[in-house]
């Protein structure tokens, strides 16, 4: 038996006990210094894994994501659309939008008198609902350009519900694509006065690893005078693993917000 024959098994051996391993593996390890050294390293790595603390769950974001999915699913069931495919959600939502607009115009023409205002209010609400549904559907797409479109669509809404804004904050915090996160930040600019957005942006700032997005977040919290971010900015400024420009921007931001007595 050669070293390369058992290399793949050594980590399994390290995770278990050498005595329970294949006798041929035991015999080889006992006679081979290289494999003994490799096994020792694997055991150190394995025991090191055991002391790494679990990353705390991002509970508010998980809650928002779960609520958004639940709400989207409930709406799909209500209107009895077919299961969502890559393009169906967008097409169906667009069709619903056109239908809703057409109905609105028709109602407005036929019943211009009393009752029309209520109908129009209801119609506007339905339109807003359709737009929110479209946005949530786009946010679930696998293509990054579709998700950018989704967060952009949310920015067009006058008064989006808290759950939808939660989905945008969630995209800012968790989306794997840098450009989706930047687009989410642009959308949240319109709603920066909402407490959930202020808190969510600070959470995103603490987790962000892209220097481009981190500096955009720093600019955002400074521009919006978000005092909740001061401690996070100070932590960033002291973190030696961060890019030098990020640390400098964070230090300047912390000074600026600290001096202003942010929100």
């Amino acid at each position, binding site marked *: 038996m050669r070293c390369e024959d058992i290399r793949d098994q050594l980590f399994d051996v390290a995770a278990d006990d050498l005595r329970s391993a294949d006798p041929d593996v035991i015999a080889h390890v006992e006679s081979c210094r290289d494999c003994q050294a490799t096994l020792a390293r694997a055991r150190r790595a394995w025991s090191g894994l055991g002391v790494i603390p679990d990353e705390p769950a991002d509970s508010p974001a998980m809650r928002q994501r779960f609520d958004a999915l639940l709400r989207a699913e409930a709406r799909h069931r209500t209107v009895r659309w077919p299961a969502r495919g890559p393009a169906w959600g967008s097409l169906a939502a667009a069709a619903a939008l056109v239908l809703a607009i057409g109905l609105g115009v028709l109602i407005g023409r036929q019943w211009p008198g009393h009752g029309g205002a209520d109908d129009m209010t209801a119609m506007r609400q339905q339109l807003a609902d359709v737009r929110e549904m479209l946005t949530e559907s786009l946010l679930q797409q696998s293509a990054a350009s579709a998700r950018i479109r989704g967060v952009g669509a949310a920015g067009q809404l006058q008064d989006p519900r808290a759950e939808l804004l939660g989905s945008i904050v969630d995209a800012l915090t968790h989306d794997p694509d840098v450009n989706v996160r930047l687009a989410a930040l642009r959308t949240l600019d319109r709603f920066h006065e909402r407490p959930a957005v202020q808190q969510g942006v600070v959470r995103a700032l603490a987790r962000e690893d892209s220097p*481009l997005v981190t500096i955009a977040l720093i600019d955002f919290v400074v521009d919006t005078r978000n005092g909740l971010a001061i401690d996070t900015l100070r932590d960033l400024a002291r973190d030696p693993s961060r890019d030098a420009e990020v640390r400098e921007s964070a230090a300047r931001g912390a000074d600026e917000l600290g001096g202003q007595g942010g929100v």
Partner: protein
Amino acid sequence: MRRLVIGIVVGLAVIGPSAAAQETERKVIALTDPARRATLDISLWAGVVNIVAADAATVVVDGTRVEGTSRADERGRVSKAVPADRSGRAAGLTRLRPSTGVEIDQANNVVTIRGPVGERIDLEIRVPRRTNLKLTKSAPGSPTSPGSVTVRGVEGDLEVRTNAGSITFIDVSGSVVAHSTNGSVNATVQHVTADRPMAFTSYKGIVDVTLPRTLKANLILQSTRGDVFTDFDVQKHSRGVFSGEAPAAGGARGTADRQIVAPINGGGPDVELRSYAASIYLRRGN
């Protein structure tokens, strides 16, 4: 002079055993339904990637594991650069090399390519012209984790993210979402899918993009440390205001001195070009 020659010889002797050696493997992947659009999903640690569109119904992948560049090799823990056998014992035998360690699968027209963590894998890939692309390279930028990405002639949703190395799109069509942390982002886009936003961003590199001259879009242009250049007819009347919005009460805030937002050809989906440390160049194509 004699000392110099000895120095060079000793230097080569030291460098020689660790010089990068290469093993290349080819795989031809048939699609489940060649009539439908393919999707190429690549996740690598590091490596040079060239993707070229071809009038073919298969995906052809040439993977090369570049030895002497892995993290283990860098630390000297594993010597993969095995010197040639000089003992004469190998006469008449074929030298077998380890595989590249690249995993390639195809299911329902989605070709998935996964490279081993910590290894540099160079890829030369030929794809059908109508192919969506999702490529991620996760190695942090360092001299030993190079790897430009070049995509030529492909039509589809094209997404590339990399920490190290430049990204170049040549004569592509569809939509592009690209980000390089340390490298430049260059693109020539011939045709753009209607209503699809696009984004070309870099932290340290320049962003140089050529778009169709008739493109309807809302441009979002930002360079913090550099300048913004374009030959599009950009009216900066909406500077500092995000697309699709009326100016906020009290006017634009701090974004005004950092970001240019402007519609071209009547406006359309957002197209973002952004670099923190370098300039951005937006050019009118055909």
